[in-house]
């Protein structure tokens, strides 16, 4: 009699062999990563959290704005635009001719200290509409030449101020060539006021970017003289005005440090500035300003950060308020399945 023991659902005998040979295939290793099952935190935007976040942001930002604004307000700043006033009235018709001429360029300015200024007081010159960031200008320098004497012939980047009759210019390039050369002599209440011109450049620049034994050579000896001249006996690392100038500004309006006054100025002090108005900003309508400024933990006088913080904080507070009102007026249950519209459309949304 036939045996009925073998279950009909069991695999046919023939397949056992073939499946065994296939079992060899690699079984993936189980790990949370390979299964994409790493424990995860899945935040959702609940009204509570979002409103709280905006509130917290506004609570942080508004005081920060106030503090920044106060810091900025604490800074005492005297700004004196002199480019126009320092051209004698008869020469004003043609300022460019005046500035390129050989007449006496000295000029006197008087500044009144509006508030007590604590030392150190920084003396800046401010140029406006001066594109130190122009591509032609910003590239025209040779860092290796500035760094060491060996490389004084590396002037490829410096065109068109690279050499004079085949002799390399040190420091070469448009930036150095256009060195700012107005000078200021300050006196307070008719007493000379020393402006310390040492330590105005970055220490790192003095020590590593400008060589101690690199001396100016053939500088400003070409056909056209650009800006200031350099003392050929002082190494580049000591030419701090040059070092400051060579830190190009990213914006067309910029201030560069001229020196530091290391004594306090009282309210009402008058400061006489005798300046030599040498630098030509007239051909391109640039402005020149002398700036005396104290500093705060945020830097110079700049209301932008404070105002921006107040604005952002205010907007966040407003948003928090709006969201709260929206939540109260029109509460919405999160994850309400009735919003799943495919439940209404038969046939799965197609």
């Amino acid at each position, binding site marked *: 009699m036939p045996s009925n023991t073998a279950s009909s659902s069991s695999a046919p005998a023939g*397949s056992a062999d*073939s499946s065994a040979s296939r079992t060899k295939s690699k079984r993936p290793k189980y790990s949370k990563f390979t299964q994409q099952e790493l424990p995860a935190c899945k935040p959702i*935007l609940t009204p509570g959290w979002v409103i709280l976040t905006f509130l917290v942001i506004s609570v942080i930002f508004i005081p920060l704005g106030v503090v920044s604004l106060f810091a900025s307000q604490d800074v005492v700043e005297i700004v004196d635009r002199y480019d126009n006033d320092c051209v004698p009235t008869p020469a004003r018709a043609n300022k460019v001719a005046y500035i390129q001429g050989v007449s006496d360029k000295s000029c006197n300015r008087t500044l009144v200290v509006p508030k007590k200024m604590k030392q150190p007081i920084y003396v800046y010159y401010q140029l406006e509409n001066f*594109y130190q960031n122009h591509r032609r200008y910003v590239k025209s320098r040779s860092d290796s030449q500035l760094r060491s004497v060996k490389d004084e012939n590396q002037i490829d980047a410096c065109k068109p101020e690279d050499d004079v009759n085949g002799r390399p210019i040190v420091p070469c390039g448009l930036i150095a060539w256009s060195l700012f050369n107005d000078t200021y002599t300050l006196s307070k209440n008719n007493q000379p006021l020393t402006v310390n011109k040492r330590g105005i450049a970055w220490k790192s620049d003095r020590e590593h970017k400008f060589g101690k034994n690199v001396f100016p050579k053939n500088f400003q000896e070409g056909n056209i003289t650009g800006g200031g001249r350099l003392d050929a006996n002082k190494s580049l690392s000591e030419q701090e005005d040059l070092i400051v100038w060579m830190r190009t500004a990213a914006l067309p309006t910029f201030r560069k440090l001229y020196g530091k006054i290391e004594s306090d100025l009282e309210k009402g002090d008058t400061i006489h500035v005798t300046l030599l108005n040498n630098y030509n900003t007239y051909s391109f309508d640039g402005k020149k300003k002398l700036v005396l400024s104290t500093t705060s933990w945020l830097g110079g006088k700049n209301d932008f950060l404070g105002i921006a913080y107040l604005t952002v904080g205010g907007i966040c507070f407003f948003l928090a308020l709006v969201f709260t009102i929206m939540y109260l007026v029109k509460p919405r249950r999160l994850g*309400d399945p009735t919003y*799943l519209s495919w439940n209404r459309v038969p046939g799965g949304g197609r």
Partner: protein
Amino acid sequence: MKLYIVELSSQELVGAIQLWSLITPVNPASTWGPLIFIFAVSASKEAWDDYHRFLSDKIANEKQVWIVKHGIKKHIQAQEIQVGNIVWLRENDEVPCDLVLLVLLIHKVFAMLRLFKCGKKWTHTLQTAALDGETDLKTRVIPSACVGIDLELLHRMKGVLECPVPDKDIRRFDANMRLFPPFIDNDVCSLTIKNTLLQSCYLRNTEWACGASVYTGNQTKLGMSRGIAEPKLTAMDAMIDKLTGAIFVFQIVVVLVLGVAGNVWKDTEARKQWYVQYPAEAPWYELLVIPLRFELLCSIMIPISIKVSLDLVKGLYAKFIEWDVEMIDQETGTASYAANTAISEDLGQVEYILTDKTGTLTDNKMIFRRCCIGSIFYGNENGDALKDAHLLSAITSGSTDVIRFLTVMAIGNTVIPVRSKAGDIVYKAQSQDEEALVIAAAKLNMVFVGKNANLLEIRFNGLTIHCQNGKIILLSKGADESILPYACAGQQTRTITEAVEHYAQLGLRTLCLAWRELEEDEYLEWLVKFKEASSVLVDREWRIAEVCQRLEHDLYILGVTAIEDRLQDGVPETIETLRKAGINFWMLTGDKQNTAIQIALSCNFISPEPKGQLLLIDGKSEEDVSRSLERVLLTMRNTTSEPKDVAFVIDGWALEIAVKHHRKDFVELAILSRTAICCRVTPSQKAQLVEILKSCDYRTLAIGDGGNDVRMIQQADIGVGISGREGLQAARAADYSIGRFRFLKRLILVHGRYSYNRRAFLSQYSFYKSLLICFIQIFFSFISGVSGTSLFNSVSLMAYNVFYTSVPVLVSVIDKDLSETSVMQHPQILFYCQAGRLLNPSTFAGWFGRSLFHAIVVFVITIHAYANEKSEMEELGMVALSGCIWLQAFVVAQETNSFTVLQHLSIWGNLVGFYVINFLFSAIPSSGMYTIMFRLCSQPSYWITMFLIVGAGMGPIFALKYYRYTYRPSKINILQQAERTGGPIVTIGNIETQPRTMEKEVSPLSITQPKNRSPVYEPLLSESPNATRRSFGPGTPLEFFQSQSRLSSSSGYSRNCKDN
């Protein structure tokens, strides 16, 4: 990504331009660096693959093989084998080239074909598209001419082998062999594929074998079937290409505008600026300098790093699929495999799935269930004929018909009995049906032990000639339509037809068994013709078929066997889930219509009446087909707006006519129909259907398991192979191979969906970050005299794309917007992927706007906070860059849905990394940014600025996100909320499916319908006019007019969805 390549080469061009120092705004390294890095990465990946390919080639080429020369066996390397060499193989050896068997120890050899070994890494180039990669044993016999030759005689053997030009058909080898004296007569001996040993097969069950090599190297069947897989372009790639094109145009416009503005500024302003020293006169080409500079500045607008990120990420997706333990076939331990790593996001956009039936939906595990012998049904009571007492008693009593029936079951096949060590007989079969029959016969005491070696064994269409007791008997088995027409005149075939019908309705596979005694003369006469036919070189198969046909007449029909091919686990659930996800299913099968419909019903493919409706397209002539096609189309148009499952059924013949003559109508039908059953279709028709759907711009996925699905799989956008019992052919040709059909659900809903979402984020983010830095550069140019100065130094620009911004986003590969369970519960959510909701021009515009907004925030805050005495170039550049990096971190954090440790590490670690890298650069005296970062970080104003940038940049975006999340939520958001607030997710969608599950329980497979009650579908399928009326239903005429307007709107809707 054609356009992308163009862009890459334009990057190279940019690199070339940069060498011209006049133009370059930045150090050449900033452009060359990332480019070199990217090429280095992809080149080293290629090199690594090549090296491994080389190693495996070398191993294959230098493998030692034995060849027999002048009667001496000697070792040579596999690459030295020449055509005509005699190769000697031992058991378990791999066949080095295509051989014709000459001598072997015993008369039969089983050559085991196995998966051609090609490492996963280089499958693309070695894709052996249609190579039979089965693990079944295949019978191989020596040619009749060589019978009796042994090894000693081998070297004296001389002969001629005529073989066809190399091709890749592994089922055909129509060659001839003639041996010269002293061997045998000068007879031409025909060779078939059965006499060959194909390359890469393994020799089993024989001690040794000798063969003459006929094809070597790349001319082997395997070598010929290797093809370079055409790279498939995913829908998303196409979209990204489009967007890249748009950005490219935008870039050109920006360059032109700024170039003109720059030249104007130069002539009006810069000439006054003596310190710039513009020469008064300049050659004409100076005009080009500024535009070219801007081109260089803007070249980063198209992120080249996207290529590297995408390669990495796609590779990881593929790995995730392979690693997935839930997609391992527990029975065989086969893990899923992604042969094509590049198209995983397409999985999430599938709109049509075309599936094979046997082996794909079903297990392909055949079990003999019922039979009908004479006119008696066995196994109807308990569903298992083997336990039917009537049958058992009929066997014991020795009823002739039953014995004959069992004889045909047992020996009318190509099954090879193998005696295992324990003494049991194990059957090796190429056909699952035959195996089931033999096993069943064995259980019914008709044990098939072996075949006589002298038997001329031919097999065609289940036809075997067999000698028994001196009588020659023709045993025949086959489908009813191929057997019943040849029944002997007197026999009533009605019961048989009824039985076939009945079984087919139960979803069983039927075979008719028949028998005829042959006269000696008839047989001999036929034998001559057969030999003649089988030595023909051209059209041999056809000729043999024709000859065999001649014997098949006056058959005595013994009965019908019914074999159950069970559905795979989880098939109905899978189909239901995927259909809810908006994917349309088409079933393409070579099976009978009734069987196909039954299987379709039992696996939720179609719903029974009244919910479902089947429309039949048939007809043998063009007019018939055209008429029924039109009728179906009309019904289909009218029912699109009803919540009804309408499916059409078409057979291969009608399909051919429909596609040939009424392609437009058929295409419309294809668009309208969510479900279709195509039965009796050939492999090329399957491919044709895929092609039709593709031409309508649908994303198609073809899934199959057998060699007949290979073409369809290759044709489809995504080919999925089931590494099933019919061999690995399909799995090898496919882009993805999975073990069971039910893994398809996970493949699409989990892997496809995540891939799509992640990639949508990744690519848009890549554009965002590149645009961000580009916009800042553009803004800066307005305050630097439109001269093309770069605000950022070269190091930063180079590192920005490659390091600072690529790491956090790479971790988005493990981001999950919804948990897998939620997706499975709400498969409809896949609609977002299908319709491309997460990456399209409007989402892209959102990212574009975001980058513009962020650029404005960073730029405005930076230039105001760092004005006056702080406006140093390097510092300002670094402040702006840090602002970008901070925003990046928060943008990624905001877009991340689930934070794992890795996400936190990469997002915040990247921020730390940014400072570390910059501190390092700031410590090098010769670098341009020496001490800059130290200076900045020691200033409170720097940190205050950063917080401001983050607050101002993220606040509005966060608010907007919250607003949309809460008040204009997408379905994804709702599910996220539901899932994370932990509330019970009860949806009406689930309730809606309740009745369907009920129906499933009473699905026709498990209930035996009363014989006299006609099954639901039958009237629908018949041609009778009242059936047609019934299919329209009672209220149809009314609906006909009502639904006109709805039709147009709904069809418009479906197209609109696609466009979104």
